[in-house]
């Protein structure tokens, strides 16, 4: 639906461009990269030590009638030194690599996390949250796996192939050519294998995703499953998902095993061919025994790079895809941005002005049409209307969770897009219907509204809101844990905490979006009265389908199909024929 869906964002950058862009955005990766790569090359050098030592031993040490121990000692000593240098460089290289990549990845994670919060509410839509989480977790992890393992393996493998080739060429160009001819088809086939493996792994990931969905359903839906006795059906669905995941895994494993084996067979063929060709060459004096045997060792150096190539290519593709998704977040413009040189809201009560405001969701029809109105400071305004009439959109524009597609919103005469967030978010607070709580205590959740609030102040706030009895009924009072998403509390109780949270924030404009929809009437009226009496200096806008809120308001806005169709005090509106009268009649018939 937006630039966040990397797969759909045209034009797509090439893999190298993605990596280059990623490196540019993450300077931590580049720190000392040159030295690290150099060390990687040195570290690979150690791999050709054995074949050379074997060759020297056989040709120099064992070729004469008497073994030349001195020569072998020198060769072995030099080789041991080379091994030592290799090991030390590898160690230093590893440590540097881990340090720079982990630094870069953690910075990237944090930056992407922050960006997600800076995106407008539109981009944070509920159904996409899981995928947003994976941006800062698994997507970054795939990049890390590649950088710490695959990337270096590519460097090491390339260096290994290169070094082996150089040594082979020195010993015999003919045999080198032969080895290359044997491996050439395999090099070419790697792409094919890799493509199949990639597809197989993708299927595995999809099936695992389905499996997790099925398991999650059985856990989250536990009460419904029990209340309706659908355990057998749920078990069947999970079993199906488990079975499908296993099939996909087995398939991927089969392809991987066959790919690996192909490398082994080609190596054997190359070895056999080197023996035959080498002997034929050697008979004519073209190669020594030691070099020929050394060659056999060198051929084994060809196998591993080819065998890991398929997996490394997979990792590389995953890393590029992961990086692409992370970058898509970082590249998404913050459409509702904090102004650079903003004008803070002037102190004192806030009045609201909507200037010919219209709004449409991207790609959707207009949901709010040309709203033009002023709300006086210190008034209590109720917004009523049927579900889907545009009430919540109105509240979101007022609090700048979104910007209008046309027109503008002004608070105390300052256009909203010029108000810095530091001023806006302390002066204007909205309580959404879903009173989301963090997995902590009641008091910590309330303190979220004003970090400096003490426990005593928070207890006093509850008392002022008429909720002291409720707090007292909690097992640990304000220090009662609320559980994940606040789910240890009932829906209504969560709303009480959310209102208290906004209350201690003490904003000058308070927006309540169905904030007490699950609270009992007596508590709701008490809350409302507390908010009113203590907020005569404050402007309040409340969206509610319980019309008691409208009855208590100074002014009522009736929204219908994105248009404000009626406005005025309750007593006036209820007296004139129109949508409000109908809404109110139905409310009265229900609540009296």
């Amino acid at each position, binding site marked *: 639906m937006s630039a966040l869906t990397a797969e759909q964002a045209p034009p797509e950058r090439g893999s190298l461009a993605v990596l280059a862009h990623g490196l540019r955005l993450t300077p931590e990766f580049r720190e000392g990269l040159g030295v690290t790569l150099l060390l990687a090359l040195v570290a690979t050098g150690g791999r050709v030590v054995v074949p050379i030592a074997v060759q020297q031993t056989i040709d120099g040490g064992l070729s004469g009638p008497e073994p030349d121990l001195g020569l072998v000692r020198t060769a072995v000593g030099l080789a041991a030194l080379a*091994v030592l240098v290799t090991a030390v460089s590898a160690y230093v290289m590893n440590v540097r690599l881990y340090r720079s990549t982990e630094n870069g*990845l953690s910075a990237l994670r944090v930056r992407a996390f922050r960006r*997600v919060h800076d995106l407008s509410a539109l981009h944070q839509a509920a159904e996409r949250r899981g995928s947003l989480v994976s941006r800062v977790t698994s997507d970054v992890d795939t990049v890390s796996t590649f950088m710490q393992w695959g990337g270096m393996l590519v460097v090491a493998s390339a260096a290994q192939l290169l070094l082996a080739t150089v040594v082979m060429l020195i010993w015999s160009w003919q045999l080198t050519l032969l080895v290359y001819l044997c491996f050439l088809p395999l090099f070419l086939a790697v792409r094919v294998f890799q493509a199949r493996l990639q597809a197989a792994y993708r299927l595995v990931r999809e099936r695992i995703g389905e499996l997790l*969905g099925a398991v999650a359903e059985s856990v989250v839906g536990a009460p419904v499953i029990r209340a309706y006795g659908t355990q057998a059906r749920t078990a069947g669905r999970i079993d199906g998902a488990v079975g499908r995941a296993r099939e996909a895994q087995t398939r991927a494993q089969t392809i991987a095993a066959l790919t690996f084996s192909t490398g082994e067979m080609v190596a054997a063929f190359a070895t056999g061919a080197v023996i035959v060709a080498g002997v034929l060459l050697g008979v004519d004096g073209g190669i020594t025994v030691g070099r020929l045997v050394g060659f056999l060792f060198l051929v084994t150096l060809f196998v591993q790079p080819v065998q890991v190539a398929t997996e490394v290519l997979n990792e590389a593709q995953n890393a590029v895809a992961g990086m692409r998704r992370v970058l898509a977040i970082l590249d998404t413009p913050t459409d509702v941005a904090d102004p650079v040189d903003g004008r803070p809201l002037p102190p004192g009560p806030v009045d609201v002005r909507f200037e010919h405001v219209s709004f449409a969701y991207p790609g959707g029809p207009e949901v709010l049409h040309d709203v033009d109105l002023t709300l006086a400071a210190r008034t209590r305004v109720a917004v009523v209307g049927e579900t889907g009439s545009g009430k919540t959109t109105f509240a979101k524009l007022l609090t700048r969770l979104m910007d209008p597609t046309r027109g503008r919103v002004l608070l105390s005469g300052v256009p909203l897009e010029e108000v810095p967030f530091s001023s806006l978010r302390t002066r204007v607070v909205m309580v959404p219907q879903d009173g989301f709580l963090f997995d902590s205590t009641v008091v910590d959740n309330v303190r979220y509204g004003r970090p400096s609030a003490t426990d005593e102040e928070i207890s006093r706030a509850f008392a002022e809101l008429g909720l002291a009895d409720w707090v007292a009924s909690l097992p640990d009072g304000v220090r009662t844990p609320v559980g994940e998403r606040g789910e240890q509390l009932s829906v209504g109780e969560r709303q009480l905490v959310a209102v208290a949270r906004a209350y201690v924030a003490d904003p000058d404009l308070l927006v309540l979006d169905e904030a007490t929809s699950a609270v009992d009437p007596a508590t709701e009226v008490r809350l409302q009265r507390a908010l009113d009496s203590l907020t005569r200096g404050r402007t309040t806008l409340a969206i509610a389908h319980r019309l008691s809120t409208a009855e208590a308001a100074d002014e009522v806005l009736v929204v219908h199909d994105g248009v404000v169709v009626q406005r005025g005090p309750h007593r006036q509106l209820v007296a004139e024929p129109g949508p409000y009268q109908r809404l109110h009649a139905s409310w009265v018939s229900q*609540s009296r």
Partner: protein
Amino acid sequence: MTVPVPPLRGVIRRGFGVLGVAVREEPRIFAVSALGSALFALTTIGQAYVFGAITDRVIEPALRTGNADRAALAIAFCAVMLVAVLKVVGIVARRLGAGIMQYRLQATYRRRVTRRYLELPFSWHQRHPTGELLSNANSDVEATWSPIAPFPFAVGVVFMLVVTLGLLFWTDPVLALVGSVVFPGIAALTVVYSRRMSPLMTRAQQLRGEVSGVAHESFDGALVVKTLGREAAETARFRDRAEQLRDTMTAVGRVRGLFDPLMEALPVLGVLLVLLAGTSRVGSGDIDAGQLVRVAYLFTLLAIPVRAIGWVLNELPRSVVGWDRVQSVLTATGSQEHGAERLPAGAGVGVGVQDVAFSYGSTEVLREVAFDVPAGRTIAVVGPTGSGKSSLATLLVRLVDPTSGSVRYDDVDLRRLAPGAVCEVASLVPQSAFLFDDTIRGNITLGAELADELVWNALRVAQAERFVQALPDGLDTRIGERGTTLSGGQRQRLALARALVRRPRLLVLDDATSAVDPQVEQRILAGLRESGPASTVVVVAYRRATIALADEVVFLDQGRVTARGSHEDLLAASPGYRDLVTAYERAEAERVALAPQADEAVPA
């Protein structure tokens, strides 16, 4: 959720215990895999012998005499290929076998864990966070069987080591001694490595969980974060975990950075030692050049496989932790007791709540709750926020059992009913509607064989008919994961239809229409009334219209029934009840009384 790292000695012993379980679960496929691995081991050694023999008998004579024996060359070529084919057979059997074994075990345990989830009572679910249950079924099962991938390989390697050392001693005791220094060295290094690595890996795993947990929670509460301007504070909270993870992973890098090169260098040093010692052995005539090459080659070939033992040992701590967590689910008790009785068919059941107390953890939610609902009657449960109404609703359909007292249908204690008997009788519509990732039809029928006509009827009563008709595929429209594509009111109406289509003999509505517009709710209530007086209905509600449907009201305050009777009786007798249900009228009355002042206070 801190995972304690058990002491290593115990871990390796217990880890082998888990591996033993794996072998017992999948003996055949393990045998195939281990035999494949043994074949691989033998052919690896065989390869060294073949190379040695080819060096001695083909290459060396040919290059010395300047005469290539074509038949010998052909045999050499065929020998190399034959060994390779056998080796590949071994590799395929080992890798496929190990994979199949691992995936089968994963599948088996995922089924067992999720089956247990379904068997365990709702009260058990309430005590365990969703995230924990998800990781039990997914990552813990995965962790448990993670050593299975390299396990057959390691078994083959042990076999290979024994054979190799035997051969070495047989070939030349001096070279064998060199070998017996290097291989145990590698093994010892591996153990040290595991010991250093496993706490770091456990820590990293835990931190990954925390990083993901913070992101999940923070993005879930994105609206709250944004409306209160707490982005910077949230980022600091996330950064703290991300940097701890970074530091742990950097520590992992230091350990791995040291051990990887050492593990690579050791076999190479072994080969060099063999060459050094071997040359003098060749000089003294104890062995020939071919034998030396063979031994040297063997060392090169063994370098990687020997590490397979390390791979298994490395995974053991993770495996043991995973196993413990999986076992904690599989051995969890607290399943609800069931009897064998079923209720005879009929219309509404009579519900009896007898002296019920209910605690959630250490908190007493309900006590001394007692009331009867005669068959076919409607009762409203009214009470302030947090008074225990939802808990009572879950007790009525036996999602949970009371701590003391009993709930009865037609005077039969629910605990004496057969499994599934309660569901046949009662339907609960909870406060927050839960929908499955399925079609509309699937969400209503839940797999029961119900004609579309019945489904449409239920949708009509629930006032969901119109919006379902407007959906692109009607009843066959798939609604996304947990119904995120629908509004709260629409979800509630579908949940209501799901209950109505079953024609329950007891219908429990737990504030099930809170997200529905008043007018729509009114139509739903009218529909309910018309759909027949047959069912017994318990409705948790605040709205007067809903309460008006009830024959009797039970007023719940702080977990106790403080008043019972008709709406009028309670209005007269219970101040708490009166306070609650007349709140709006009184508020309005006060406003009217204060109206003139209010008008003055507010500039027009």
